[in-house]
């Protein structure tokens, strides 16, 4: 998915979700605030009614309005209150703040509660008339702190902001993740496309070279027969040359056979195999081909490791690696270390030879790449092909003058 697609399918919907959250949250907060305010208003009006009954009773008992004030002081949410006569003149009042009683002649006509803003927050004001037992008219003026409501609103706003910030943070992390995934996906796709192209090119070359090899081998066979006939019928001095010619033609044939074999796709014949047996078989084959008594061999594994693999191909792979090491050192140590980790087998084949120059290291597994005069550059290529056919991978690490280590990673493996 490219940038535009990502924007369309992820970014815009996310922004949409944020907007919806913001609108919903604002509406919800406004609704809850209105409802709560209305509820508080109703409750306070009801409370004022209770106050008035008490006041009427106290006035009837003969208490003076000033005396009654002291009974109501101390309630922390009441900022101020006053008792007014029938003409809305203030008979007595009390306030938490020196001289602060925001009642004016304009307020005398009010019948519904009203809210005032002050430096200490909103104050709910309520003026309601009541009658004393003697029938005389009075009014109660009450100023009640809405601090709790404001605190609740502030907390709700804070929570909403926090939620919004969290959503944005989660969104950022999510998008960073998506971008990273997309980057990796694109990289993998490019690699896969590259590998596919390489495979196609190799297939074409293989088909072409197989055809060429086939065409060369026919005349070579004829030539070999011809040398054989010549060898039988010619004079002794010519016979020797004919034998040399025949051996050279046969050598060309073997080279072509190896070349053709290396290009053929591998067909695995898997069986349960002990890794140690495979390594031993490869080592013995090499000892038979070119014995080197001065070479020290080391093999270590914590427990016997078994794997499901093509024994012959794997033996061929180790044979090629050992021969490579063999040719790289005059005398020294060739060690094989085996360990298993999380259903993976790690095999390190290390020699103490001349090593490989760093600029040549990336090419060692390429076909027909060689630094030797006699080599064809097929051994390590074939080793890699065999390991990859088993679902594994092989890497080379080398320090010039100190030796080379090939690390093979194969799936499976089990101790017994």
């Amino acid at each position, binding site marked *: 998915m490219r940038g535009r697609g990502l924007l369309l399918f992820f970014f815009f919907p996310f922004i949409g979700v944020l907007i919806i959250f913001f609108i919903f949250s604002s509406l919800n907060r406004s609704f809850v605030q209105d409802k709560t305010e209305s509820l508080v208003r109703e409750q*306070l009006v009801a409370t004022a009614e209770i*106050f008035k009954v008490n006041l009427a009773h106290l006035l009837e008992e003969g208490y003076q309005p000033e005396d009654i004030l002291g009974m*109501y002081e101390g309630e922390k949410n009441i900022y101020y209150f006053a008792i007014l006569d029938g003409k809305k003149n203030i008979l*007595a009042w009390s306030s938490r703040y020196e001289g602060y*009683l925001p009642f004016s002649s304009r307020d005398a006509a009010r019948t519904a509660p009203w809210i005032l803003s002050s*430096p200490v927050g909103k104050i709910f004001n309520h003026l309601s008339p009541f009658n004393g037992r003697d029938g005389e008219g009075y009014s109660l003026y009450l100023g009640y702190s809405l601090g709790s409501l404001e605190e609740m609103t502030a907390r709700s706003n804070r929570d909403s902001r926090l939620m919004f910030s969290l959503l944005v943070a989660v969104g950022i992390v999510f998008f960073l993740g998506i971008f990273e995934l997309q980057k990796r996906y694109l990289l993998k796709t490019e690699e896969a496309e590259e590998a596919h192209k390489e495979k196609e090119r190799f297939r074409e070359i293989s088909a072409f070279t197989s055809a060429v090899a086939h065409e060369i081998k026919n005349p070579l066979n004829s030539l070999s027969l011809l040398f054989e006939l010549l060898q039988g019928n010619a004079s002794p001095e010519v016979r020797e040359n004919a034998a040399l010619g025949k051996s050279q033609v046969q050598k060309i044939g073997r080279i072509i056979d190896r070349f053709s074999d290396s290009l053929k796709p591998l067909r695995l014949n898997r069986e349960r195999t002990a890794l140690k047996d495979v390594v031993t078989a490869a080592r013995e084959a090499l000892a038979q081909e070119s014995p080197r008594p001065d070479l020290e061999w080391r093999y270590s594994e914590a427990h016997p490791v078994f794997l499901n693999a093509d024994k012959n191909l794997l033996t061929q792979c180790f044979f090629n690696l050992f021969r490579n090491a063999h040719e790289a050192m005059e005398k020294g140590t060739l060690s094989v270390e085996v360990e298993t980790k999380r259903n993976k087998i790690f095999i390190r084949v290390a020699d103490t030879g001349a090593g490989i120059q760093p600029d040549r290291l990336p090419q060692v597994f390429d076909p027909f790449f060689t630094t030797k005069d006699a080599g064809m550059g097929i051994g390590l290529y074939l080793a890699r092909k065999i390991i990859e056919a088993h679902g594994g991978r092989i890497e080379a690490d080398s320090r010039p003058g100190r030796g080379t280590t090939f690390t093979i990673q194969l799936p499976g493996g089990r101790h017994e």
Partner: protein
Amino acid sequence: MKMARVLRILACLIAAGTAFAGQASERQSAPFYNVDTERQIEGTIRELVFEPRYEDKAPFLILVIEEKKSGEIYRAEISPAWFFDYDLHKGEDVRIVGSSYSKGETRYIIARRLQCGGETFFLRDSRGFPSWRGGQRQMKKQGQHRGRGI
């Protein structure tokens, strides 16, 4: 939670409403800041005194002022002494906006704004809320100066 808060408020109110007997009764003798009686006076300071106000919470600075126009004497309530940090002197001219009232023969004014020596002091807001009780918010608005305005 909201309902619980409402019920708590209600319970507090009912508790306050039913707490009668045994409590010491404190009378509110001082007049309040009445916006209906707000006026402006210009005069000269004749005397500076400190008097208790509002249930003796703190001594208040009181200026005895002779109004220029009428020659009448006013006792102007400024603010608690700790809040007002400007040196006033006898004979200085002042202009005061505040709520006036009379008690017997004496005229009083609760100052909201005081102008003196080229400076203006905001002592209360437009509805009479005292600046010294506004907390941090109010103090910040007034640039941290106690009683000193713009």
